[in-house]
């Protein structure tokens, strides 16, 4: 018994060893955290100083701006261990009257890579000690310091430390990247002009590495021309006294609230041809010209047309079948019923679009890195959708009825039941259609995400209107509905046939859940299917027998029993990146690797994909994974990277947005340092071959 307690204590102690004791100073709480559960000899261990700052207080970036001091870390480490330079979070501008500081608020994570020596003695503990000093300011400034410690076992292998690993990984993904961009600068009319070729999209601000290089307060005028970003900086006193030959710093690009940092090393040159009149550009530091009125009309029309086309996308098919079944009922119905049905469907579509767009905007406003179709990144949502679609299949197959029976068409009661059903169909159509962004939508949605909230929601509503338009036409043109075939027994057969489309969709959604949440989740989902089928059967029995409250209660209990476990699904710790059966090795998306491949001129094909994206799966099966195309990849030496968005990933989301897109599929072909070629969303073998073989 005693030994058991001892063992438990050891395990418990170990579980917490990756987090050092928090030290509370005047306005901050600081602790050391480690990404892994142990230090592995010969490897680099990421540790971090994790701080929680009081509301409104800030600490400083390595260049603190007009005033302030950067973090100082003085390490005491076991023999042979070495701490690298501090990896700062991306800085923000903190204005203070006429002064501006560069710093961090909230919960900054300061990363430090620690090299663990080959001969570190396994089985012992490594003690990490650091004396940290920082200046923390509200408007008043207070120097704070803390002695922080962390004890970690040295072991042959280590796992992710719960909590810490996520925080450190997020911080690492936000570290500045070296994209190998070529940059130059020159003096022009008392200002510094930096030209950065191939800078990604977004509102730009350049933070020099060294304090005093530029004045932090004046706005930096920005201009983009032919793929080059020009920034106008105000020289600081050090720059004026001793004009440097190199200008090094961090370019932060803000794209709709998502920020990326790019390292810039600019060389002095006299040969920049600075475009046009920078004074005019200074007023508009924005990047998009999408705000022009003529453009807005075009965008709304594209959105409407995109909505209509959405009806023909593979992933809306099941819903189109469902809609077709209900339209078939309307043959011979009076005009009022047809109109009520169309309006209800449209209302369902529009309301769901507005709700999803609103939620998306709110979440993005709160800083979430998500795009359109984000709801399918949750295994709970996908699981619940699978059960709902399964129930619809059972309904079409005839196990139970919703609201009314086929025979009742025409009666007032039926019209009511049909209307509610149409509303629900509209809701479901949007829900399922979301990830299938048609080619039109991919141009429109990024605009909507960047536009003021009202304009954004209006664009989404235009898409919804397009989606509903074919059915509205049915209501608006009287002869059209009259031409529909008369209802009859054939409709029951048709519905039964359509039920298989629903079961097919169920299989697809179950497969998505299996990738998101692992085999255990499939088991839970399978039980949910059985229970919900049981509920549907009980409900159908109750309908046959009249009221039968006990059967109805049983049905309710069964459906609750089916759904509740589904809400416990969580994303698996390590999603397998859409494992491929093909012989070609596919690499996971890695921006550092991409940059080095581009630098050495190796062509790279990137497949931005997700399990919940049907179009992606279609392209994969029909084109990308065929032996023929795999052979072309091998012959041309093209590296195949997979950027998997099945579960949320801020780095991949940011990469997609840099291409002006907001969702998958997206196919990019990089040939050296040039801008990537964007392939169509529906691939054909010839198109892919042509792209891969254009080289040489």
């Amino acid at each position, binding site marked *: 018994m005693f030994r058991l307690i001892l063992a438990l204590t050891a395990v418990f102690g170990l579980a917490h060893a990756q987090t050092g004791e928090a030290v509370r100073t005047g306005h901050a709480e600081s602790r050391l955290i480690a990404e892994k559960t142990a230090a592995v000899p010969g490897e680099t261990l990421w540790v971090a100083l994790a701080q929680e700052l009081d509301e409104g207080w800030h600490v400083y970036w390595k260049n603190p701006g007009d*005033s302030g001091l950067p973090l100082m870390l003085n390490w005491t480490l076991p023999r042979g261990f070495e701490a690298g330079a501090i990896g700062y979070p991306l800085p923000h501008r903190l204005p203070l009257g*006429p002064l501006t500081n560069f710093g961090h608020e909230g919960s900054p994570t300061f990363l430090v890579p620690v090299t663990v020596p080959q001969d570190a003695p396994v089985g012992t503990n490594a003690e990490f000690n650091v004396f940290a000093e920082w200046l923390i300011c509200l*408007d008043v400034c207070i*120097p704070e310091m803390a002695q922080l410690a962390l004890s970690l076992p040295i072991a042959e292998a280590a796992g992710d430390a719960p909590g810490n690993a996520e925080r450190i990984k997020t911080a690492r993904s936000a570290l500045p990247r070296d994209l190998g961009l070529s940059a130059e600068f020159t003096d022009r009319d008392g200002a510094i002009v930096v030209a950065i070729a191939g800078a990604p999209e977004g509102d730009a601000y350049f933070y020099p590495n060294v304090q005093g290089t530029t004045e932090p307060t004046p706005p930096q005028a920005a201009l983009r021309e032919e793929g080059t970003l020009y920034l106008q900086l105000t020289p600081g*006193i050090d720059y*004026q006294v001793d004009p440097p030959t190199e200008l090094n710093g961090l370019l932060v690009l803000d794209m709709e609230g998502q920020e990326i940092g790019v390292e810039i090393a600019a060389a002095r040159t006299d040969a920049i041809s600075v475009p046009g009149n920078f004074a005019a550009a200074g007023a508009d530091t924005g990047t998009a010209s999408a705000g022009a009125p003529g453009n807005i009309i075009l965008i709304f029309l594209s959105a409407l047309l995109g909505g209509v086309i959405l009806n023909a996308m593979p992933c809306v098919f099941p819903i189109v079948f469902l809609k077709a079944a209900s339209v078939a009922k309307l043959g011979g119905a009076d005009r009022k019923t047809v109109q009520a049905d169309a309006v209800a469907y449209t209302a369902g579509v529009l309301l769901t679009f507005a709700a999803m767009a609103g939620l998306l905007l709110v979440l993005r406003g709160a800083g979430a890195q998500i795009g359109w179709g984000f709801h399918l990144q949750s295994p709970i949502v996908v699981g619940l959708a699978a059960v709902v679609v399964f129930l619809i299949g059972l309904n079409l197959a005839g196990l139970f009825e919703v609201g009314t029976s086929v025979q009742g068409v025409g009666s007032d009661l039926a019209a009511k039941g049909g209307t509610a059903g149409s509303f629900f169909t509209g809701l479901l159509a949007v829900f399922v259609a979301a990830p299938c962004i048609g080619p039109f939508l991919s141009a429109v949605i990024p605009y909507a995400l960047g536009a003021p909230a009202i304009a954004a929601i209006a664009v989404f509503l235009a898409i919804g209107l397009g989606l509903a338009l074919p059915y509205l036409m049915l209501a608006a043109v009287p002869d059209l509905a009259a031409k529909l075939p008369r209802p009859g027994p054939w409709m029951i057969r048709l519905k039964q046939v359509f039920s298989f489309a629903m079961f097919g969709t169920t299989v697809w959604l179950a497969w998505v859940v299996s990738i998101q949440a692992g085999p255990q989740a499939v088991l839970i989902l399978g039980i949910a299917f059985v229970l919900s089928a049981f509920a549907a059967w009980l409900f159908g029995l109750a309908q046959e027998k009249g009221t039968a409250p006990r059967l109805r209660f049983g049905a309710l209990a069964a459906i609750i029993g089916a759904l509740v476990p589904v809400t416990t699904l969580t994303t698996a710790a390590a999603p397998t990146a859409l494992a491929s059966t093909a012989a070609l090795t596919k690499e996971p998306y890695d921006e550092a690797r991409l940059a080095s491949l581009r630098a050495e001129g190796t062509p790279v094909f990137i497949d931005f994909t997700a399990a919940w994206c049907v179009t992606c799966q279609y392209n994969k099966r029909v084109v990308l994974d065929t032996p023929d195309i795999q052979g072309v990849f091998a012959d041309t030496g093209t590296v195949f990277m997979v950027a998997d968005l099945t579960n949320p990933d801020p780095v991949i989301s940011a990469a997609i947005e840099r291409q002006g897109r907001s969702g998958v599929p997206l196919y990019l072909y990089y040939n050296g340092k040039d801008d990537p070629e964007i392939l169509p969303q529906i691939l054909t073998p010839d198109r892919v071959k042509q792209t891969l073989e254009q080289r040489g």
Partner: protein
Amino acid sequence: MIGTVISLLALAAPIPGQPAPSFTETGASGATISLDQYAGKTVVLEWTNDGCPFVKKHYGAKNMQQLQKRAAAEGIVWLQVISSAPGKQGFVDADGAMALNAERGAVVADTLLDADGSMGRAYAAKTTPHMFIIDGDGVVRYNGAIDTIPTANADDIPNAQNYVAAALRDMKNGREVVTTVSKPYGCSVKYADS
């Protein structure tokens, strides 16, 4: 927008070798002080804020007072400047400024009360302390920090090189000032919100 442009123009930092911005401010003594009246004399400007830990570092260790006494002995005019806006840290009235200096044993020609921040902006004063040296011809000779170790810890003072002392020594000996610009460190100057 226009206000921003003006305040930006005003923040163009005086560079060593160039004429110092002229100023006329009321001192804590009640006198009106302008740069012109010190023609022929070396002037040291010290931006200060008694609540700032970096200012406390140099006054608490008597470092600033010693420097002030040496300067006074050599006929150098030492002016403190307080650009804190009313209600902000470091803001004091004339009596308050006199009392503070009496208490700390500071030896200064006067303390300029720049509550509207106009002089601070003209000099692009960023921190407390932030030091300027202007020679007898009205030319800026030094702009920057008090010394080489940017901390609030008084224990660092003995190990630091004092930029102001070094520049004054160079000027006294008729040599070029070696370090004319450094990065001022300390608390940000508590200007009025613009």
